[in-house]
């Protein structure tokens, strides 16, 4: 074959422009494989066409690129889906490239999906964590409340025992001239010498003051302990042979002997 003549016939230009029939193309391809000169010439033709078309090119509007990328992404998702549905329908020739194409598409989809899922899970986890913390706080609160109620119930049960016990005598102390409305009681067990104070009405005191309970034994006041105005029964010191109980106002911590001028309530046994 005369290579020069073959080239000057313009058949390579037609080949590069995709103008040849199937059989002509196969012919050219056979010759290309055989004659390196033809390959070189074809490259030159293609490079010239490339330069020409780049020169003649008109840049599309900016939005086109985004639209095309979207269309391709959509197409790649569809390919993966349809490939999964028809796994046997592949051309063996393009298997490797097809594989990488699908693999790329699949990994893009996977990346998107897993990013979304990771974000989703992270969000759920955060929400769960917050809920858990709230539940723990509520749980602690309930436990504390229960404990308090329980303690309070225990206290009341104990108080009930004392109040209803026949071995405790109730000594009612009535208000003195200092505070006619005041009232308090002492539950006193003569045999065990235990005593419990119960306040019905005592005015609130300043911070530096406290009430002090006294027992009058053989005409002498004996310190029974200090207390603040509060509800419920207060266990006081043990004493026997009491003639009377009295409460005075003293400096915080109490005094060894009572300030008789501040006596609030008094009651004889």
């Amino acid at each position, binding site marked *: 074959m005369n290579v020069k003549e073959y080239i000057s016939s313009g058949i390579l230009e037609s080949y590069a422009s995709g103008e040849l029939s199937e059989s002509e193309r196969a012919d050219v391809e056979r010759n290309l494989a055989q004659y390196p000169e033809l390959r070189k010439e074809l490259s030159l033709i*293609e490079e010239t*066409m490339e330069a020409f078309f780049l020169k003649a090119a*008109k840049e*599309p509007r900016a939005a086109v690129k985004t639209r095309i990328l979207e269309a391709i992404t959509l197409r790649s998702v569809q390919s993966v889906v349809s490939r999964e549905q028809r796994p046997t329908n592949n051309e063996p020739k393009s298997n490797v490239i097809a594989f990488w194409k699908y693999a790329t598409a699949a990994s893009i989809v996977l990346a998107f999906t897993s990013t979304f899922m990771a974000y989703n899970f992270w969000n759920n986890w955060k929400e769960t964590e917050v809920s858990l913390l709230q539940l723990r706080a509520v749980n602690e609160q309930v436990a504390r409340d229960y404990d308090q109620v329980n303690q309070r119930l225990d206290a009341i049960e104990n108080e009930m025992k004392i109040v209803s016990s026949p071995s405790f005598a109730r000594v009612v102390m009535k208000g003195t001239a200092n505070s006619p409305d005041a009232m308090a009681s002492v539950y006193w067990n003569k045999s065990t010498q235990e005593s419990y104070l119960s306040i019905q009405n005592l005015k609130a005191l300043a911070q530096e003051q406290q009430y002090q309970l006294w027992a009058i034994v053989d005409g002498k006041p004996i310190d029974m302990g200090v207390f603040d105005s509060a509800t419920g029964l207060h266990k006081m010191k043990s004493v026997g042979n009491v003639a009377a109980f009295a409460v005075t106002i003293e400096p915080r911590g109490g005094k060894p002997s009572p300030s008789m001028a501040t006596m609030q309530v008094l009651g004889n046994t």
Partner: protein
Amino acid sequence: MIYRILNNDDVAEEVLQDTFLRIWDRIGSYDSGKGRLFTWMLNVARNLAIDKTRSKEISKVRKTDDIDDLVNKIDRKQQAEQNIDIIGLKEFLGRLSEDQKFVVEHLYLKGYTQSELADEFNIPLGTVKTRLRLAIIELRTILEVKS
């Protein structure tokens, strides 16, 4: 090139998108032993653009335009910056002989196939081929393609 063949922004962009999708779908059938990727993609685009001209029946109008009409039309329609490449295109096409310019314009810019050109203008197909061949050799010098 798609735009040159279709001469309409919207249709050209539609075909450009179809081109990229076609390339995406068919990349497996590209064989680097048979030519450059650019040429392959170019022919995908060219075929789709030509199909479009046929389906749209806009070919009659298109084929009566010559490059000057095309340039004038674009001159009136488009902004100055886009004219520059048209002017450049016109300038380097002007360096081809009339025969070669005619062939290149019709084959590469108006979407004629070689046989269409031969039939419509009563030029023997062999002559179309050799004129294209000579035009490409000219363009090689004009566009400074190194061997």
